């Protein structure tokens, strides 16, 4: 095994790291960079708890090698709030009590933000299908969907 | 000590070999002692834990919960939850 040197941008910061070729982007974030906001729920791309964006596009970090990140812009949940100012998606999740255990929440935040950047006025059905890859076992999704719709409205009126 | 009409339920009844009996006791601990004396086979089950219902309230442990005269008393398997 030999380490691969990778230069990339994470949440706007230039970051260099060395990783093994087998390591996923999720491994790199969590184990090498200490960014544990993305969670490993399945490692098969079926739960969405490890959601990140790569060049603005929503992705499961468990389905990407750390070695692939060179030259790309990575976005994680840690970069969603600006300092102490929450993104409307985050604030609305709190306001609507749209979390119980909270382990799926980082993935939902990243995914919902990506949705609203692409589609500022989604229907309930569009939100539900967009988030179909983000499993939540606690809430039955009801309050999550309401929070995302509400955040969309706030962003539109801002 | 007051005497109670006690109903045994589920595996408690089967292990004891009967479903109802008279037992004396001011509280749960005394009642369970009387029960074990009457039905020695229940010893291990009582040690493992049973639940006692007094007038519809379930007690899992709580030895010193008083049992009022004329109360409805059941000894049933111990409960757990998710």
């Amino acid at each position, binding site marked *: *095994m*030999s380490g*691969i040197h990778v230069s990339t941008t994470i949440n706007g910061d230039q970051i260099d790291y060395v990783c093994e*070729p*087998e390591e*996923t982007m999720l491994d790199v974030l969590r184990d090498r960079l200490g960014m544990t906001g993305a969670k490993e729920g399945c*490692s*098969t*791309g*079926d739960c*969405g708890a490890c*959601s990140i964006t*790569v060049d603005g*596009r*929503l*992705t*499961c970090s*468990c*389905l*990407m*090698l750390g*070695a*692939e990140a060179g030259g790309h812009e990575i976005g994680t949940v840690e970069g969603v709030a600006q300092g102490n100012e929450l993104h409307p998606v985050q604030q609305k999740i709190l306001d609507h009590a749209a979390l119980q255990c909270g382990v799926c929440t980082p993935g939902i935040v990243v*995914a919902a933000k*990506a*949705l609203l950047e692409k589609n500022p006025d989604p229907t309930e059905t569009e939100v539900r*299908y*967009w*988030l*179909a*890859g*983000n499993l939540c076992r606690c809430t039955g999704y009801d309050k999550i969907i309401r929070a995302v719709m509400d955040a969309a409205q706030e962003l539109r009126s801002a | 000590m007051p005497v109670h009409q006690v109903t045994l339920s589920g595996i408690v009844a089967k292990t004891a070999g009967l479903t109802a009996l008279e037992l004396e006791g001011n509280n749960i601990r005394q009642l369970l002692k009387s029960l074990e004396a009457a039905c020695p086979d229940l010893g291990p089950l009582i040690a493992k834990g049973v639940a006692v219902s007094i007038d519809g309230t379930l007690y899992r442990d709580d030895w010193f919960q008083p049992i009022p005269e004329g109360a409805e008393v059941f000894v049933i398997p111990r409960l757990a939850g998710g």
Partner: protein
Amino acid sequence: MRYEAPGTIEEAATLLARESGIARVLAGGTDLLVQLRAGMIEPDLVVDVKRIPAMMDIVEENGGFRIGAGVSCARMGEHAALVAAWPGVVEGAELIGSTQVQGRATMTGNLCNCGPAADSVPGLVAAKAVATVVGPEGRREILVKDIPAGPGKSNLKKGEIVESIFLPKRPERSGDAYLRFIPRTEMDIAVVGVGVSLTLDADGTITEAGVGLGAVAPTVLDVEDAAKAIIGSKLDEAALEKLAAAASAACNPINDKRGTIEFRVDVAGVLAKRAAKIAYKRAGGK
């Protein structure tokens, strides 16, 4: 394991051909990484093709579309002209996995895994799509339907990589559609998948058709009998029944955790009718 990300397809093919151990192509990686993590495969070499510019574009060519092997399914859905010409093919590609998976998964990867239930393949088969393959002996073209050899097995030779998939120019009054059956609304592997592509003449009679069936046999099927069942018709009830019967008859499925033989056979017919109706409407039929 070594990771390589060459800049040209020739370099990639050379790397793959020279590797004496197990080599794998990494495009979207949505299947490869799952297999890696689970220890199902332990490759000696992984060749990432996403740094090869020629494989990362959708190009209009002779009125048709050439889709690079590294193009994600999400990008296909964002290509208005492609969606307008081949809505069924794009539908199939866009049903692979979640939004997250869409951002990475590629149609070519879906094809080259040779899963019998690959969502994007029945539509490609119905469309008579052609893949361009680059290998140590140069470039060749092969019908998409001829790539899978069996579950997980392809007819590609060692060192060969699919560079792109070409969807031909659409005649006027053409339409296609893909439908699959899954127990949920998302996130499942198709229990049955049906792609239908057809072309009408001016009075709405079907002149050309293709029907691809997924998840009902070891490979995705090109069901000529089903196509014949509707050619020459205006998709009336009788033609639809013949289509359904032909689709069901072509099935050679298994019982597994995802569905039973009888279910797959029945539903293949049902979905063939439904997909044909959508394709017919898209082609302008009434």
